[in-house]
């Protein structure tokens, strides 16, 4: 079935340009055009669409207003802003309803790749309620103590962005959001930063302050949600996996991108757990209850009760937010690496290995019944023999973390 894409721009020549440049996609996509937000909503009412790409500034309804409306009415549609404006204030005001920001002029190839990617990730989740719920997410709740720490730093007489970066990089949800912002070409910053701490420094004091104090895009988990084993240990586990995956990747490759992706992917690999706990709190309590009482692991319980697993849920959101493919791939398949279609998946390998090693050694592992590395996958890339070596490295990482 052809993907349905809607382009919205008040400049008709821009629409003509899209129509011509995307003609090569006519067998995969069916493209519609609207020259205003109002017309776009009329068109969306006629049939289901997969992706909407809208200009930001238009007479009447603005792009942000349109996407907010689309988010409410058709949450499953992927919402992309394609704008020639570079006003940070406007961007900050639209972070909620927007999955991705792309800057004009954007080469047709890049536009095609971005749209193709968000179409592909649609296959990660079944077409039901959960997909709509995840598509509506603007941010993932933070660990309450991390959040308070950051607010305290920002409200202190001499707030240090570096300090904010250090604290923020220990939180999964805030890290993801900051990386989404930095990745959006909107800010005109390098596409690849090595991690959330650098991203915070890049964004700078003013924006960070706005994000936390005036825009208040970050929410927090209720302390009660964190009382069970899974939720209590997921942050620490994620941080360990991030650090260990980075070290594994460093030994495998010199490609800085892969190393960074391994760290970021490691930090965010369990983001799906937080998403599910946030959007389906009661269901997820049941999942955890099931894991604690019955002899089944977390993924199976999730499948049973929710119909999807946290790895796919996390990858789906990161995909919507425009994270690079290797990270999405690594998050989606960190439990089942051999299912990945990607070859030479260094980041996936590093994250899978780091995850398994930490689970075998930590309490959280209980929820997964202490999994073993995917043997076919690990054999394939020749890491099986080094397992004991990495277990030693892991011990060091844990030790270091305790002292920080």
């Amino acid at each position, binding site marked *: 079935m052809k993907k349905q894409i809607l382009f919205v721009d008040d*400049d008709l*020549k*821009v629409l*003509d*340009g*899209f129509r*011509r*440049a995307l*003609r*090569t996609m006519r067998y995969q996509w069916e493209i519609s055009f609207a020259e205003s937000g109002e017309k776009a909503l009329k068109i969306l009412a006629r049939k289901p669409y997969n992706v909407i790409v809208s200009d930001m*500034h*238009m*007479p009447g309804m603005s792009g942000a207003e349109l996407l907010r409306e689309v988010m409410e009415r058709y949450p499953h549609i992927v919402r992309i802003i*394609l*704008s*020639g*404006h*570079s*006003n940070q204030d406007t961007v900050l005001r639209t972070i909620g309803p927007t999955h991705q920001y792309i*800057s*004009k*002029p*954007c*080469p*047709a190839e890049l536009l095609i790749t971005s749209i193709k990617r968000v179409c592909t990730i649609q296959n990660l989740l079944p077409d039901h309620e959960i997909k709509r719920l995840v598509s509506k997410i603007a941010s993932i709740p933070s660990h309450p103590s991390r959040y308070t720490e950051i607010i305290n730093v920002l409200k202190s007489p001499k707030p240090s962005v570096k300090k904010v970066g250090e604290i923020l990089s220990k939180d999964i949800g805030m890290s993801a959001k900051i990386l989404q912002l930095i990745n959006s070409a909107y800010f005109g910053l390098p596409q690849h930063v090595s991690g959330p701490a650098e991203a915070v420094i890049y964004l700078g004091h003013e924006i960070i302050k706005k994000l936390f104090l005036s825009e208040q895009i970050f929410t927090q988990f209720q302390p009660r949600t964190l009382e069970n084993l899974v939720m209590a240990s997921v942050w620490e586990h994620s941080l360990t996996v991030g650090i260990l995956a980075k070290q594994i990747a460093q030994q495998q490759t010199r490609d800085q991108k892969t190393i960074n992706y391994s760290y970021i992917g490691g930090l965010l690999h369990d983001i799906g757990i937080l998403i599910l706990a946030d959007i389906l709190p009661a269901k997820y309590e049941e999942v955890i209850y099931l894991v604690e009482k019955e002899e089944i692991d977390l993924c199976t319980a999730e499948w049973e009760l929710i119909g999807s697993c946290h790895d796919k849920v996390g990858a789906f959101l990161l995909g919507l937010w425009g994270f690079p493919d290797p990270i999405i791939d690594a998050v989606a398949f960190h439990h089942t690496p051999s299912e990945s279609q990607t070859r030479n998946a260094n980041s996936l390998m590093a994250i899978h290995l780091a995850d398994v090693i930490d689970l075998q050694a930590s309490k959280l592992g209980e929820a997964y019944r202490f999994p073993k590395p995917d043997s076919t996958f690990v054999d394939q890339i020749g890491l099986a023999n080094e397992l004991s070596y990495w277990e030693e490295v892991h011990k060091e990482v844990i030790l270091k973390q305790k002292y920080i």
Partner: protein
Amino acid sequence: MQNNLKTISVPFALDFDEMNRWLLDSLDLVASLGDISHSGRKQQRGPLPPVQEIKPVLRKLLDFQVMAFFKINEEDLDFTLIDCDPIGERTLIEEELEYHVEKGTFAWALYQNRPVVIASDVLGKRTLFHVMATKKRILGMFMGILDYDDPFIPDAIQKLVSIALLNCASLIENSILYDELNTYTNELEEANNTLKQEILERKLLENELVQAQKLEAIGQLAAGIAHEINNPAQFIGDNIRFLQDSLPKILILIEKYRHMVKAAKEGAIPPELGLEVSDYEREMDINYFLKEIPITITQSLEGINRISKIVSAMKVFSHPGGEEKIHTDINKTIESTITVARNVWKYVADVVTDFDQYLPLILCYPGEFNQVILNIIVNAADAIADTLDNGSGTKGTITVSTQQKDDWVEIQIKDTGSGIPETAKTKIFDPFFTTKEVGKGVGQGLAISHNIIVEKHGGMLTFETAMNKGTSFIIKLPINPETQSTA
């Protein structure tokens, strides 16, 4: 005529000729006083120069053994000796003075507006006192010790002494006044210099403010200008990609046509060749390309035009300007400012221009003039946006017109916005007055605009407004700024 005045000690013994000559000599002497007063002004200031000048005159009248001049100190009414001739008799004079002060004769002499001759017991000689005073005040005292003991001094001589010393007093008074005037002038000059410096500093500050406001305005525009350039850049890129994708197909088609031409030259086109060509035409959808390519090229050129237009408008708008006014095409410069600000108004209003094509070139600072136009257009757009926020829906209109009215060029910028409320009317040209939300402007725009038009261009900036109907700003610039001034 040397010394011959005093030789006549007994006037009544004179015959007519002698009397006549004496009178003429006296008149000469009085006249010569005018020379003194004339030369005195040019000389060094203070009481001493007039005193030095008067001494030879007095000597002509009477034989003084010693002449002494005292100056009064206005603070404590004390007398100080300022000149004693000959200087060696200073002690003598001081003793004599002390004697007369004690006796009270000095004080008494002070209030006699004539020469007072008193016998001195100390010296056994006679001393002549004469106050040195103008009508306004006492300036000092003259004291002369006469060489002889003849008590009789003819009235005429006495009068001449009085005239000489009055003249001396006037000169001293003059010099005092001159001093005061000088001090006053110096103070004035100093104040003037300080003022000039302050004006200069203020000018610099004002220029800085104008620059800062301009930067702020440009900052507001920058994002919009980027958008105005990025939009055409987007579709030009897309169009070229489309052309690039089309070309191989068209080349294949041309290749097939060539085959056909070749076959035709060789005699006949085999039907299967013709069929192949028409099949390919259908497959590649040649009609689509035939229809689309010309539009693609036209639109791309339009896009390039849009970019060039805004870039050249930016060049005109951001004219750095110099110290000198330059002859400017007002219509063109307004047009570019409208183009540069397009992103500010295009979502809320249409801009209609009604330019007088026969306007003369105007001497002005184009950069600053543009800034004024921009400020007013931004305000107009904001005023219209306010009405749109209130839900009235459709776009407003900003009408910009120029016309010549006698020796003036009038520029009118009219909006269909919310109007200026009564309470704000008197304040809109005040610095730091703003009704915009924090961060949207510092309230310098109109204050600076007013300064630019009125102070720098000798023009006028006024407005008419009606609530919920709109506002017109009217700028009037003199066509010949050198000869015209603000009416």
